[in-house]
């Protein structure tokens, strides 16, 4: 990453078929991990493997949702065409053929997007767009779904609904799900595993094993408190802020 070491000495294992979230402050290396697994970035030391193969070798078996993709109203492409591109978009030829229509319909029903899939993607709400994009990532039957902040632009009911949908996909189809998140709370009751990046390192485990005062204090080497609100939400207090943290998220958080 431009000559910088994002993290080192990190060893982590995500169980196949697990629903795992990658957490941590901005710049801690969450997206970097996804890009390493996609084979877009090399690891300078150590190794990474996806389902036993080197990263990048199996990209057709990884469904990928990059960060913050919002289509504005000027994008006049139907949701269903976008989903079909997930199936055959890398193949040469004209974008006219109808092959794979059943699989596209099936996956649109699975995510609950069949009602609005024939509308232009730019006219859909953020939650509807996210479902179409999840369908696109799923349509080629990947074994791993890698999502970068898929809940970021959604309102709270939609965040919970998408988290529940992802868990259902994980359980029903045995798809491993790796999800980068800024806020763990909408996901908390659905997750199997958590990877928490911080201070150039990472801890892995079940959500409650990782997100507690003791583990996070050990990770950062400074005292950190995890408080639980009466509704079950977790709040982390005392995170050391990285210098020069001026992301847009912090401005309105």
């Amino acid at each position, binding site marked *: 990453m431009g000559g910088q070491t994002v993290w080192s000495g990190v060893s982590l294992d995500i169980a196949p078929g697990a629903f795992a979230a990658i957490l941590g402050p901005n710049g801690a290396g969450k997206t970097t991990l996804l890009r390493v697994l996609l084979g877009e970035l090399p690891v300078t030391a150590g190794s990474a493997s996806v389902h036993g193969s080197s990263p990048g070798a199996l990209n057709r078996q990884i469904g990928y949702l990059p960060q913050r993709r919002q289509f504005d109203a000027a994008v006049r492409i139907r949701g269903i065409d976008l989903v079909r591109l997930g199936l055959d978009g890398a193949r040469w030829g004209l974008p006219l053929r109808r092959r794979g229509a059943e699989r596209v319909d099936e996956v649109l029903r699975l995510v609950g997007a069949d009602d609005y899939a024939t509308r*232009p993607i730019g006219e859909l709400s*953020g939650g509807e767009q996210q479902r179409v994009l999840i369908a696109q990532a799923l349509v080629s039957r990947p074994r791993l779904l890698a999502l970068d902040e898929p809940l970021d632009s959604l309102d709270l009911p939609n965040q919970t609904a998408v988290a529940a949908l992802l868990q259902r996909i994980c359980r029903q189809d045995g798809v491993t799900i790796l999800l980068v998140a800024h806020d763990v709370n909408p996901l908390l009751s659905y997750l199997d595993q958590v990877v928490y990046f911080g201070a150039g390192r990472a801890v892995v485990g079940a959500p409650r094993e990782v997100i507690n005062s003791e583990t996070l204090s050990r990770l950062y080497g400074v005292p950190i408190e995890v408080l639980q609100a009466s509704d079950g939400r977790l709040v982390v207090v005392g995170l050391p802020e990285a210098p020069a943290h001026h992301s847009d998220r912090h401005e309105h958080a």
Partner: protein
Amino acid sequence: MHSVVAAHLSLDPAFDFDQLTAFPFLVNALEAGTIVAVMAGVVGWFMTLRRESFAGHSLSLMAFPGATGALLVGLPAALGYFAFCGAGALVIGAAAGAGGARGRGEESAVTGAVQALGLACGFLFLSLYRGVLASYESVLFGSYLGITSGQVLALAGVAAGSLAFFAVVGRPLLFASVDGAVAGASGVPTRGLGVAFLLALGLAVAATAQITGVLLVFALLVAPAATAQLVTPRVGVGLALGVALGIVTVWLGVALAYATDYPIGFFITTVATSFYVLARAARALVARPPAWRRRRVAHPPSEGAAAA
């Protein structure tokens, strides 16, 4: 710029068609215009989707040094058009590729520079030429007179190559255009396709400029495609509609220019823009409530301190 015969268009299309095809120069104009409309319709549809109108605009201006440069060294104008627009496309494409992740900003800076340099060269060529360039306005604003059969053949060749290109890369190009990050992750060579598309755009622009003139290229490049995208979000239907609208525009433009003796560029631009305005108006009439009213409240009060 005066037509050789007096023409009177009637309301009888068959009679008008006979009139329009009675003279070889008009047949050449219609053939060239139809070829250009097909190519511009397809390229323009992708250009609108990729939001590369600025690149398209700059490449169209490269036709000016192309035309004047060819004149200066005594080569056919068409060759100058294709050479300069094609070279401009490669320069812009190379800059975009070198820019990497920041490609967009880099690309528009280089595009602007290429455009200014091209215009300046064109003006230099013109003053070096010293002679009187009789068809100065027709280079800038288009003409349907004096299109040779050889020019029609050259246009047909370039158009065939361009359509073959889209037949091969259409699907991955669509993927890369709407969804670059995911297309890249699934193995689409997005950068190479971007450069190849710019080259196709440059050639289409060079062809279009021979009919509409350097300054009015967008009438055929953007308007029909943008109209088609307003009417339908379907890929195949949209491409076909863009091409059809372009052909209708060119035929009406040639007919009106022939009948009235006024410049063709004006009529093509007016017809193409009218289609676009009509499509907009039609959409506004049948519109559902605007998007913001259908959406739920976008952002509930902030979630406060999160677990990250």
